[in-house]
C-alpha cells in the first residue's frame, strides 16, 4: 500500500462537488455560464483521472494513491480511497464519459441548471464508488448514484419516461435492498468491527458457508445494475427514456458500477462463494448474451437496439468474471472499459441525430449517411465496435473473455460466440436501414455535425481506436491487479 503524496482521488471528488456548488450558486438564466462551468470542472476530473492512469506505478502494483481517514470509529467506517489496476480503467472511463457527456448536452435549453446539478451528483457518486475501499462508502456511493436518475429521466427524458424512470429506480433500489443486508451481514459476522475491504478480504475471515450466502446476495443485488439476465429489463427501457448524456453515463458507466461492485465487493471478499457460484454466473451471463442479441434483432428504435446490445455486452463481462481466471478478469475489465466508451459514442451520436430529426425509429430514418456523413461515421464506428471488429477497444475485451471462456466453459463459450454473429447481424441491419438505402427527404436539409459539437464524439472515437491499436496499455494495467488476486486465492 502506498500512501498518496497529494490526495488526487479526493481531488477528483472535490472538483465534482465544487462544480456542483458553483452550478447551484449561479442563477438559472445564465445557461452558457453553467455549461462552461460544467465543462471546466468535468475537464479537471478528466485530467486527474488521466494523470492517475499514467502515474500509477505498474512495476510495484498493489494499492496506490491511498487516502485513509477514520470516519465513524465506533462503527469501523473509514474514508478509504485507493487506486489499483481494476479501478483505474474505470476512473478513466468515468472521466471521459463525464466530460463528453457534458459536451453532448451542450444544446440543452430546458432547465439547464437543474440538469447539470443532478448530473454532477450522479457522477460524483460514480467516481466515489470506483475509488472507495470501504464497504459502507461503496454502498453510499452506489445509492447516491441512483437517485438523481429518476429526476433526470422523468424531467428531461423522452419515450415513456415516467414508466421507464420508475421501473429503473425501483429495480436498482431493489438491488440495494439485497446489498445492504449482505454488507451488514459481512460486517457483523467478521467480528472485526470494520468495513475495510482490504481487511475483510483476508483469507479465513469468513467461513465458506458465509461466503456463499453473502456472495449470492451481493451478486444479484449488484448484478441488477450490471444488467444480469433476468434482472435486466429495466435497462433498455431506462436507456431509451433517458436524455442522451444520462444514457451515456448510465449505459457507459453506471452499468459498470454493478459489474465492478461484484468484482470489488462480492469477489474480493467472498472468493469461495465466487468459485461456488461461478457456474450459475456463467449460465446467466450466456443467457444474457444470447437473449440480448436475439431481442435486439427485433427492435425498431435505435436506442432500444443499443439497450439490448448493452445487455448482451454486459453478459460478456459477466462471463469473464465467471471464469475465475486471470484472463477472464482482464477481459472483463477491459470489456467494461471498451463497452463504456462504445456505448457512450453510440448514445452521443444518436443524441445528435435525434435532436435534429426528433425520431429514433429506424424505419423513419434512412439514407442519413448522405445528409450527415460525419454524424453517421461516429455511429457506424460505434456499431463496428459493438460487432467486435478488430482494432477497436471493445474487440480485445471480448476476445480475451472468449478465450478464457472456451477453456472453462466450452459449450457456453461457443453459444456466446454464435450470439455475437447474431448481434453483428442486427447491428449491420440497423446501420444499413438508418444510414444507407433510400434517403428520407424530410430530413435531407438537416446540417451535419459542426466541429464544436463533434468534439465529444471525436474524443470517444480516438479513445476507442487508441486502445484498440494499443491494448497493452490497458492489459498491463489490469494485470497488476488480476494476477496477484488470482494467485492469492485459496
Amino acid at each position, binding site marked *: 500500500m502506498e500512501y498518496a503524496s497529494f490526495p488526487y482521488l479526493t481531488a477528483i471528488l472535490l472538483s465534482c462537488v465544487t462544480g456542483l456548488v458553483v452550478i447551484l450558486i449561479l442563477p*438559472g438564466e445564465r445557461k452558457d455560464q453553467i455549461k462552461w462551468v460544467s465543462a471546466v470542472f468535468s475537464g479537471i476530473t478528466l485530467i486527474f483521472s488521466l494523470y492517475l492512469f499514467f502515474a500509477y506505478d505498474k512495476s510495484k502494483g498493489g494499492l496506490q494513491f491511498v487516502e485513509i481517514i477514520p*470516519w*465513524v*470509529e*465506533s*462503527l469501523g467506517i473509514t474514508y478509504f480511497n485507493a487506486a489499483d489496476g481494476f479501478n483505474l480503467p474505470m476512473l478513466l472511463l468515468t472521466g471521459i464519459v463525464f466530460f463528453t457527456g457534458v459536451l453532448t448536452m451542450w444544446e440543452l435549453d430546458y*432547465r439547464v441548471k*437543474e440538469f447539470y446539478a443532478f448530473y454532477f451528483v450522479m457522477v460524483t457518486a460514480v467516481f466515489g464508488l470506483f475509488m472507495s475501499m470501504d464497504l*459502507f462508502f461503496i*454502498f*453510499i456511493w452506489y*445509492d*447516491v448514484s441512483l*437517485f438523481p436518475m*429518476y*429526476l433526470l429521466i*422523468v*424531467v428531461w427524458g423522452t419515450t415513456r419516461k*415516467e414508466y421507464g424512470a*420508475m421501473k429503473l*429506480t*425501483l429495480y436498482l*433500489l*431493489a438491488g*440495494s*435492498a*439485497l446489498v*445492504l*443486508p449482505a454488507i*451488514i*451481514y459481512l*460486517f*457483523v459476522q467478521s467480528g472485526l468491527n470494520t468495513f475495510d475491504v482490504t481487511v475483510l478480504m483476508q483469507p479465513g475471515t469468513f467461513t465458506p458457508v458465509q461466503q456463499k450466502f453473502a456472495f449470492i446476495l451481493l451478486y444479484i443485488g449488484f448484478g441488477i445494475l450490471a444488467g444480469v439476465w433476468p434482472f435486466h429489463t429495466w435497462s433498455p427501457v431506462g436507456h431509451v427514456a433517458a436524455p442522451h448524456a444520462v444514457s451515456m453515463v448510465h449505459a457507459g458507466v453506471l452499468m459498470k458500477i454493478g459489474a465492478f461492485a461484484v468484482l470489488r465487493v462480492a469477489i474480493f471478499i467472498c472468493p469461495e462463494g465466487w468459485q461456488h457460484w461461478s457456474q450459475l454466473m456463467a449460465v446467466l451471463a450466456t443467457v444474457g448474451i444470447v437473449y440480448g442479441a436475439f431481442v435486439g434483432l427485433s427492435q425498431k428504435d435505435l436506442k432500444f437496439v443499443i439497450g439490448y446490445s448493452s445487455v448482451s455486452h454486459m453478459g460478456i463481462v459477466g462471463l469473464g468474471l465467471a471464469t475465475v481466471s486471470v484472463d477472464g478478469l482482464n477481459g472483463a475489465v477491459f470489456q467494461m472499459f471498451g463497452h463504456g466508451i462504445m456505448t457512450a459514442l453510440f448514445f452521443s451520436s444518436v443524441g445528435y441525430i435525434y435532436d435534429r430529426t426528433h425520431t429514433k425509429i429506424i424505419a423513419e430514418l434512412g439514407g442519413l449517411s448522405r445528409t450527415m456523413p460525419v454524424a453517421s461515421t461516429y455511429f457506424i464506428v460505434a456499431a463496428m465496435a459493438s460487432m467486435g471488429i478488430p482494432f477497436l477497444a471493445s474487440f480485445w475485451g471480448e476476445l480475451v473473455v472468449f478465450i478464457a471462456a472456451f477453456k472453462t466453459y466450452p459449450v457456453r463459450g461457443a453459444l456466446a460466440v454464435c450470439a455475437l454473429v447474431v448481434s453483428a447481424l442486427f447491428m449491420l441491419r440497423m446501420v444499413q436501414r438508418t444510414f444507407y438505402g433510400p434517403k428520407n427527404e424530410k430530413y435531407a436539409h438537416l446540417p451535419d455535425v459542426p466541429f464544436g459539437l463533434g468534439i465529444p464524439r471525436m474524443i470517444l472515437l480516438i479513445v476507442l481506436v487508441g486502445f484498440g491499436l494499443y491494448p497493452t496499455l490497458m492489459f498491463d494495467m489490469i494485470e497488476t491487479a488480476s494476477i496477484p488476486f488470482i494467485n492469492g486465492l485459496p
Partner: protein
Amino acid sequence: MKWFLFLPEIFYFASGMAFLCLSMTNRSDPQREYYIALALAALGVVVSLVAVNWEGFLFFNTYRVDLFSQVFKLILAMGLFLIVSICSELKSINVRHHPEFYFLLFVCTLAMMLLVSSVHILTIYVALELSSYSLYVLVALRRDEKMSLEAGIKYFLVGIFASAIMLFGVALLYSTTKATFIADLIKVLPGILDTPAALIGLLLTLCGFFFKLAVFPFHFWAPDVYQGASNQATAYIATASKVAAIAILTRMIAVTGPGSIYLAHALVALSIISMTLGNLAAIVQKDLKRLLAYSAIAHAGYVLIGVLSMDSAGYASVIFYAVTLLIMKFTAFLVVVKVADDGRNLEISQLAGLHRRSPLLAMALMVSVFSLAGIPPTIGFTGKFLIFAAAMHNGYFTLVLIAMINVVISLYYYLLILKAAYLLEPEDEQPTLQLSQPTTILTSVLVAAMVVIGIYPTLLFELARAAAGALM
C-alpha cells in the same frame, strides 16, 4: 437545591401559564403571540441545553433526571421551537384561539418532558395522559370544525381505549412483580418474563406507547388525525409526539434486560405488519398529509426493529432515529405549511410546479423525501443503517431483509411526490412562493443538517450512545 433539576419543566409550565393568562384577555394580536411563543420556545431550547448534563432523582425517586431524559428533553425543546417557527401564518386556527393553541403546545411539551423522565408506572401514566389530552384538543381546534372535530373524537376514542388497555396491563404487571418503580421492575421482570401473566402484562402496558407511535394495531387514528388537524398541529404530532413515544417505549423495553424470545417475536410481528401496512396503504393516498400519516406508521415499524434488538446498540440507534424523524418529518411539514399558505390541506397534485415556484422548497422536499425513504447521503439512511446493523447483530437477518423490501415499496410513493414537485405543471398559473428571510435560512439549515449529519453522523451517534448508556 434539588428543585433545580426540574428547571426545564418549570420553565415550560410557566410558559404555558403565560399563554393561559393571555387567552383570558379580550384583545388578541396574532403577531405578538407568535413572537412571544417563538421567544419562549427559543429560551426553552437554551434551558434544556443547559440542563443536558444534570443528573439526579426527584419526587421520592419516581422522577429521574439522567442523560437519556435530558437528551430527549433537548430534542423535544428543539421540536417545539421548530413547530412554533412555522406558526407565523396560523390561518387554519381562529384568531381568538391562538393563545390556547400555544398554551396546548407548551403544556404538551411539558407533559412529554415529564414522560421521558418518569421512572414510576404512575408518573408515566399521568404524563402520558396529560400529553394525550393536550393533543386531543389541539387536533379539534381547527377552524374547519367538522373535519377536525371528527379527527379529534377519533383520536380521543382510540386514545382512551389504548389507555384502558395499558392500565389493565399495568395491573397485571403489578400483580406478577409487585413493583411499580422501573428500578424494581428491572430486578424482577427479566426473571419472570417467560411467564404468561408477566409477558401479557408488559405487552398490554406497551400498548399505550404503541398508540402514541401509531404502531399496528393502534394506528387507525393516524390518517384521519393527520388529515383533520391543522398543518402545524399535525407537524407537532408527527415530530415531537413521536419522539416522546420513542423515548418512553425504549425506557420500558430496557426494563426487560436481555428480553425474552416471546416478547421479541411479538415485536417482530408488530414491526413487520406496521411497515408493510403503512407502506402499502400510503401508495394510494392523494392527500399529502394522509400519505405522511401512513409513512409514519411504516416508520414506527422501523423504530420497533431498533427497539427489539434490546441491547445498547439498538437503543442508541433508536435515539438517533428519533432525531432523524424529527428533522426529516419536520422538513416535509415545513413544505406543506409553506405551500398550503392559506392553511388548507395539500393534495400531492397541488405540489405541481413547485420547482419553479420555489426551488428551495422543492429541494427541501426532495432531500426530506429521500431521507424518509432512507436513501444516502441523508440522515434517514444513516438512521436506518444503524437500526439494521443493531438488529443484524442480534441475528434478525430476515427482518432486515423485509424492512429493506419495504424501503423499496415506499420509494414508489415518495418518487410520486417528487414527480409532482419537479415534473408536473399546474393547470392554472400559480404565483411564485415568497419565503421570508428567516424561513429561507431555516429551510437551508434543515437541508444542510439532513445531508451533513447523514454524511458525518459521528457526533450525534456518540451522543446517542452515551444516552443509551445512561439507560442501561
